């Protein structure tokens, strides 16, 4: 198998994809949950929206960094 494919590169793709995919999904889902909670409970809206904004900022930064890494290579 190793003579046909770069196993180290493949392992990197698998690990990075899992970490990035699950990390972005986790943050985005938390942001969605916070936004829905803010809609349902206006009393805690500011705190929930701040949480959502923080999560979305991290997601945005991760995406930009990832794109930069790919395109600058």
């Amino acid at each position, binding site marked *: *198998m190793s*003579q*046909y*494919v*770069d196993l180290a*590169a*493949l392992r*990197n*793709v*698998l690990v*990075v*994809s*899992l970490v*990035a*995919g*699950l990390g*972005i*999904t*986790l943050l*985005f*889902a*938390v*942001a*969605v*949950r916070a*936004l*829905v909670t803010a*809609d*349902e409970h206006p009393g805690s809206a500011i705190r929930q929206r701040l949480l959502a904004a923080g999560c979305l900022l991290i997601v945005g930064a991760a*995406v930009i960094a*990832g*794109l930069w*890494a*790919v*395109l600058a*290579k």
Partner: protein
Amino acid sequence: MHDALLLFIVVTTALVFDFTNGFHDTANAMATSIATGALKPKPAVAMSAVLNLLGAFLSIKVAATIASGIVSADVITLPVVFAGLLGAIVWNVATWALGLPSSSSHALIGGVIGATVVASGTSAVHGHSIVAKVVVPAVLSPIIAGLVAALATRLAYRIARPQERPVSHRYFRFGQLAAAGLVSLAHGTNDAQKTMGVITLALIADDQLPAHADPPVWVIIAYALAIAAGTYLGGWRVIRTLGHRLTHIEPPQGFTAQTSAAIVLLTATQGGLPLSTTHITSGAVLGSGVGKRAASIRWGVAGSMVVAWVLTLPAAALMAALIGLPVRHGSTAGVVLVALLAALVLFLAWRVARRHAVNAHNVNDIPEPADRAIRDQEFPILEEKAS
């Protein structure tokens, strides 16, 4: 004069291939966004077209990688490139008519292999490269994308609980659009450049460019426009298959499928692994179905897709070999005749496909049997009570 005509036909054939690549692969980025209603069909394909166009200009690193290493560069001639491209076009149009998402890149590689074998024999084909660049990635890429999408879907449903709070669908649709944009951009950086690479090799073979030259500016502009135009036309049949026939997709699943596909695609590009956009997105859509509890997956459709994937390379190679037989000696008249014949056959195929047209207006109308099969599996108790 004859050489100029031959070169013109080859360049035009490559443009047509790039166009079919665009409309065949629109589904990769936009099928789930259209299926979940995140975007209307026409704006969705327009957005994908613009991002494909942009992506084609962002980098030329992928250019020339598709043919180099697969076959010996010194056997590449204009008739070989012509036959290879035409074999790939025929396969793309056939799978589009059947609504099957298959890899345009594999069709192109298969076409180049078939045309080379006819022109120069099997010794000019590098079997090791085919296994490393085509076979192994074809097997692994949908598995990786499917695994990431399945786990991400499970996570998204556990945290956001969209079944109990359907209002969350609105937010997932926004995320889905951003991820679909990333897939479109990545598709433009990969697929448009594969054809640019092949046509650059043809120009080098015809002594129009020095060896190891980068694609000229006119090639980059022309092929970027061709793939964007094809994307805007929209391969609605493939969009319907990926968006509706494989599994019923909700916005959270659309988000996780597109995010997983974009991440695997970009990570593989960064790592230098040549993966197929079609295989990755199809695997991710399937994974998003597996990841959602009680979701129904139409394994028959998935099986047809896998059969198409397996057949893509040998079928395109066979077609290119058949096309390559009469043109392998470089006769311009032969190439002109074959090109006219192919144009006629493709026109007839398009006319036949139009009898059961799938377009922007009816792409989300699932035919009754498929609709019923999904309903029966998702709401069996309701169906029993209703009857």
